């Protein structure tokens, strides 16, 4: 029984230029054993260390690839031919010569290399927020060559931001943060795409915005948006790189759907409104988000490269005063309403409502409601009206009525002394629910001339001042 092995051009150097080698054998494996005995140089070209045919080599018997027959055990009939065919393939690199020079310090790392850098270029990260956390994260992701960086922010640059939001500078005070970010990031790395989403992330747009990216980086400054980002990432199955800061402490983790816990496993409920001050109220060490945001960028890059050990399932706690890092093990909560066994959260919800910023349906006392038209008339007339806004600071950042004094509802009881007891007070919130409770409170405290603005700032924006941003 004799079979003929056809040797392809690049391997003929190992057979003394013989094109066909005849061997007595009944299977491909037997034939190869004899072939390698005669021409040992062929063996490492055709078989891998595990004794199987290398991926770069195809072996055909009677026109069929032995991968779809019995591999090396495939039987060969007398006089049949075994054809060895080299895999001829390849493809373009997506990096230009200039990019190869730019990223040379990455290319030198075995864990990155050209293929890793190509992964970064093909990858995409969406940053929710371009403030304290988003600034360093965006800078390092751009420097690393992440091919597409999306930014969501609706805010303008304020001088007080520049104590920590290093993406921006004095030239951009008063201008949109997204425009400042695009300018800076493009100057740092012109080979990547920056996509701007001039929106406030909300239930209506979150899925659409996040869907187009591989990784989401949470750089928000309020709980409602954190829960929204977490839930949206879960439904879209995107890893959510989480970071948060407070005064001198920071936290960082990765919430990776199906692999590890989500934000709700860690914090099933938001704190009562007003309990955790924002940076504007509690203060923050400027460099703190620099550390946490950089750690978030590190995790996003590792996810895109597929290297290292991610923070999924771990919460890193950083204390700047101590300069210490601690790590807590996080587990998926089987009772989590989003990712647990009995999932009650099956879609995006109203996150302001969830965070207690709109709870309670207490009816306003009779005669205590006024419409936005009434208020407009009073203000135009020059009446002595004290306008009180009981929303949270981040809501006031979005839109506010000029002249309103902001005292978040939860803090109102101990700040009553700030109000002019003799004036007419008009209280408003987002839609009129919290302000109704505030009016109850104030009237019980003896401030009789207190009125609730029906429909809240949303009604004001709709009827009186459409220039206000609604949310």
């Amino acid at each position: 029984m004799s079979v003929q092995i056809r040797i392809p051009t690049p391997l003929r150097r190992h057979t003394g230029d013989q094109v066909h080698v005849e061997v007595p054998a009944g299977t491909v494996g037997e034939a190869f054993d004899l072939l390698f005995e005669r021409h040992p140089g062929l063996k490492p070209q055709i078989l891998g260390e595990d004794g199987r045919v290398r991926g770069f080599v195809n072996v055909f018997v009677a026109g069929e690839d032995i991968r779809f027959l019995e591999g090396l055990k495939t039987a060969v009939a007398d006089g049949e031919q075994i054809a060895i065919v080299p895999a001829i393939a390849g493809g373009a690199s997506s990096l230009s010569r200039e990019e190869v020079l730019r990223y040379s310090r990455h290319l030198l790392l075995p864990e990155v290399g050209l293929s890793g850098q190509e992964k970064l270029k093909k990858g995409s990260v969406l940053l929710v927020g371009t403030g304290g956390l988003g600034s360093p994260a965006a800078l390092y992701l751009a420097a690393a060559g992440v091919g597409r960086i999306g930014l969501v922010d609706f805010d303008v640059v304020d001088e007080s931001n520049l104590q920590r939001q290093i993406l921006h500078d004095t030239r951009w005070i008063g201008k949109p943060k997204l425009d400042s970010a695009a300018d800076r990031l493009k100057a740092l790395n012109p080979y990547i795409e920056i996509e701007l989403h001039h929106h406030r992330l909300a239930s209506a747009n979150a899925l659409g915005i996040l869907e187009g990216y591989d990784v989401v980086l949470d750089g928000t400054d309020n709980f409602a948006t954190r829960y929204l980002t977490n839930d949206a990432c879960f439904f879209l199955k995107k890893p959510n790189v989480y970071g948060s800061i407070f005064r001198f402490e920071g936290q960082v983790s990765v919430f990776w759907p199906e692999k590890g816990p989500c934000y709700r496993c860690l914090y099933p409920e938001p704190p009562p409104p007003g309990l955790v001050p924002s940076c504007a109220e509690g203060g923050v060490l400027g460099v703190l988000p620099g550390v946490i945001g950089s750690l978030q960028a590190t995790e996003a890059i590792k996810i895109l490269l597929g290297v290292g050990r991610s923070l999924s399932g771990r919460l890193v706690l950083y204390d700047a005063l101590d300069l210490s890092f601690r790590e807590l093990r996080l587990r998926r909560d089987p009772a989590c309403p989003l990712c647990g066994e009995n999932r009650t959260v099956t879609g995006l919800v109203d996150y302001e409502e969830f965070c207690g910023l709109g709870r309670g349906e207490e009816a306003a006392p009779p005669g205590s409601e006024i419409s936005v038209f009434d208020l407009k008339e009073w203000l135009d007339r020059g009446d002595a009206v004290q306008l009180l806004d009981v929303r949270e600071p981040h809501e006031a950042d979005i839109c506010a009525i000029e002249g309103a004094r902001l005292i978040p509802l939860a803090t109102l009881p101990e700040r009553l002394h700030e109000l002019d007891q003799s004036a007419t007070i008009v209280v408003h919130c987002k839609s009129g629910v919290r302000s109704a409770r505030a009016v109850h409170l104030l009237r019980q405290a003896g401030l009789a001339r207190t009125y609730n603005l029906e429909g809240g700032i949303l009604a004001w924006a709709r009827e009186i001042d459409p220039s206000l941003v609604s949310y």
Partner: protein
Amino acid sequence: MASTTTFDPGALAAIAAGAAAAYPHEGCGALLGPNPGGGTRRVTQTIPLPNGETGRPRDRFEVAPRDYLAVEDEADRQGLSLLGFWHSHPDGEARPSTTDRAYAWEGLLTVIVAVENGSPRDVGAWEILAADAPFTDVAMELQGTGSPVSSLAGRSGA
């Protein structure tokens, strides 16, 4: 010490035409010529081949095994040798990538032509001298005149 390979004008024209025709996908083809027998390689003929990569033909190419056997048989029939393969990088650079290197074979020339907006431009040639060696440059020259070839612009004769 870079080696040299000469190319017949007809072969260069055929590579240019094949690359342009495949755009925006990667094109590929076989390079045939007389057995060099230890001397300078000369590419006298190219055979265009379909790109067997169905998943991402814009930045990957593959020669189907059947097509490989067919061109090797054709080379044998004509008394020529299969010298290597060319492929194109649409809107890319005429430079081998890590993938190109991974699939390189000692003894087979790799020719890559950049195609910009449908027009063939820069072209280059490489070979590996050992299984684990990196690519080394191969100087391309026009058969007959010996003038260096670095671009296929204007050569498709269309």
